[in-house]
């Protein structure tokens, strides 16, 4: 199972070391509540990072994921609050909207031959504009103060009590696992299988390794690229609906800046910017490594502004490291 194997041991080692450091230095780091915090706060980010790593594997990038998160969230909010659709349908519509947004990115890249980052930088603005335009919170004055009550949607933001389910409540105390973490696990396995066991996955790796070769080998390159961006949009949509479940509302500014963290997670996780190489464990580990660092720093009461500086620094360091390995291999 090549696509579940660990991309590099370094990141696991690094995560363990940093985790241990925080466990000793930050007071409330090694508590159940904090573990729950990390799982809740970064499961959805790991989902976005998986989608992002697919576009990077295809030698592209998707800067619009933050806006797509907000788009899915707002569509879900409107569907359940204004049109009062049952939760399942509302969730489906939101996911379709996000997938369509992703597919549109792919169409722009393929048919208008735009550079991925320019196309998605433009749709970043355009999708955010749509979010403002369809915002139920602005169209109906009574909605901003109302919470989403649909049980399906609320369930997405819920927790699973492991102890009680196992009947171990009297013996040990385990953290409550957020539903979003289970969604992440299922999604990661699904994408892992898609990458490792299907023709589509093989084609994607071929294309990422050498677009020329893929084209000459007669692959339907256009369709492949569009599907990759559609899947990236779907990932962002999945994250968006999870966030609505958690916050019980959708804000217009939701997800802004998230593209940076998602790309960072994917790159830390060993997704090569030269294309072709990547998997699902990398971005997931990358997202949680980032989560451990940022939450640990918050517990140490280090200013949020330093964290912003650090996130950028980590991103640059990660690709620097990536380049170093590449060079060593070439020698």
């Amino acid at each position, binding site marked *: 199972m090549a696509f579940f194997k660990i991309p590099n041991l370094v990141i696991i080692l690094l995560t363990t070391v940093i985790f241990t450091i925080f466990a000793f230095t930050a007071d409330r780091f090694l508590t159940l509540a904090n573990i729950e915090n990390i799982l809740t706060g970064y499961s959805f980010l790991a989902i976005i990072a998986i989608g992002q790593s697919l576009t990077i594997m295809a030698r592209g*990038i998707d800067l619009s994921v933050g806006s797509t998160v907000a788009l899915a969230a707002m569509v879900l909010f409107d569907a359940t609050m204004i049109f009062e659709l049952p939760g399942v349908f509302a969730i489906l519509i939101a996911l379709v909207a996000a997938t369509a947004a992703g597919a549109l990115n792919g169409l*722009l890249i393929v048919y*208008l*031959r*735009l*550079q991925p*980052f*320019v*196309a998605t*930088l*433009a*749709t*970043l*603005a*355009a*999708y*955010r*504009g*749509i979010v*403002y*335009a369809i*915002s139920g919170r602005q169209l109906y004055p009574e909605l901003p103060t109302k919470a989403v009550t649909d049980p399906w949607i609320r369930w997405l933001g819920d927790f699973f009590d492991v102890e009680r389910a196992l009947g171990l409540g009297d013996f040990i105390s385990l953290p409550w696992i957020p539903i979003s973490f289970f969604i992440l696990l299922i999604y990661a396995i699904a994408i892992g299988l898609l990458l490792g066991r299907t023709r589509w996955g093989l084609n994607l790796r071929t294309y990422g390794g050498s677009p020329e070769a893929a084209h000459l080998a007669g692959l339907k390159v256009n369709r492949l690229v569009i599907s990759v961006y559609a899947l990236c949009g779907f990932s962002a949509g999945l994250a968006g609906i999870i966030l609505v479940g958690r916050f019980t509302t959708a804000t217009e500014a939701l997800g*802004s*800046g998230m593209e*940076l963290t998602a*790309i*960072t997670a994917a*790159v830390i996780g060993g997704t090569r*910017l030269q294309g072709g190489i990547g998997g699902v464990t990398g971005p997931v580990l990358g997202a949680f490594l980032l989560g451990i660092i940022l939450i640990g720093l918050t517990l140490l009461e280090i*200013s949020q*502004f*330093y*964290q*912003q*500086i*650090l*996130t*950028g*620094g*980590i*991103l*640059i360091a990660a*690709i*620097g490291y990536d*380049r170093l390995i590449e060079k060593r291999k070439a020698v």
Partner: protein
Amino acid sequence: MRLEINKNIIALPLVIIALTLLVGYFEPAFLTVDSAIAVLRRMATIGIMAVGMTFVIMTAGIDLSVGPTLALSGLVSYFTLVSGMPVPVAILAGMASGIAVGAINGIIIAVGKLPAIIVTLGMLSIVRGTALLIGGPTLHQISGHESYSFIGSGALLGLPVSIWIFLFIAAIGIFIQQVTSYGFQISTLGDNPEASHLSGRRTRLLIFSTYVICGCCAAIAGIIDSSQVYTASANFGEFGTELDVISAVILGGASLFGGKAYVINTVFGVLFLGIINSGLNILDVPIESQLMFKGTLIVIALGFTSLSRNSKS
């Protein structure tokens, strides 16, 4: 003087005139000198950054960190002023901060050979964090410095000073790109980095220098911005600023894969964007939809440029 005729130098102005007339048809007030000055004034800072960005893009690079750099330089100038320094020192300090950001970008990209888009995306976060660390999330009012306010709010010969600065920087940019050997070296570097390297050009130094120019331009824009609204804030140059700047350059026909580009066309790209921005405003399109429209228009325009370029080659 190598003044080649390029296709865009005719096509783009025609599009701009057509757009202006279209907006003017619905709102005649748009076709006045005052309105033209207002359009230019709004675009001066974007235009200054676009001139710098043109050089970066000619080397097949990109700089996503111009927005926070703008905020940083405004803040640095503000704090220099507050500490009692004279205005020229404040301006130099602001510019130095932008040059420093550009130099960091340049070193990592040119010497470390890392992809510009990821490096400058990281720097976007780093510089914003630094600006917030220095200035906090609050607004800092700049008052009692007439000569500083003059940069953004004053007028010379009937034109706002900020427009003069834009025209001046555009003129320098056009001169450097069209006439000097530096401009020629940059464009050959973008066309074929290998050949450029083999022919003994100092490619690293050239790439490095373009980011320094770009950072410096962003800093100048930041100084104008802060003096225009008498305020410095770490949140100026919000996300989307770099989109405007990059769009202006690409609308001018520059290829993101590097190679020859014309600063004069970038100036037209800036005008095109300015007319879209102001036109949407004057036609009372709601702010939310403006974002949507602009994204769409930019995609269409870029699509046309990219398709026409591809069909040519």
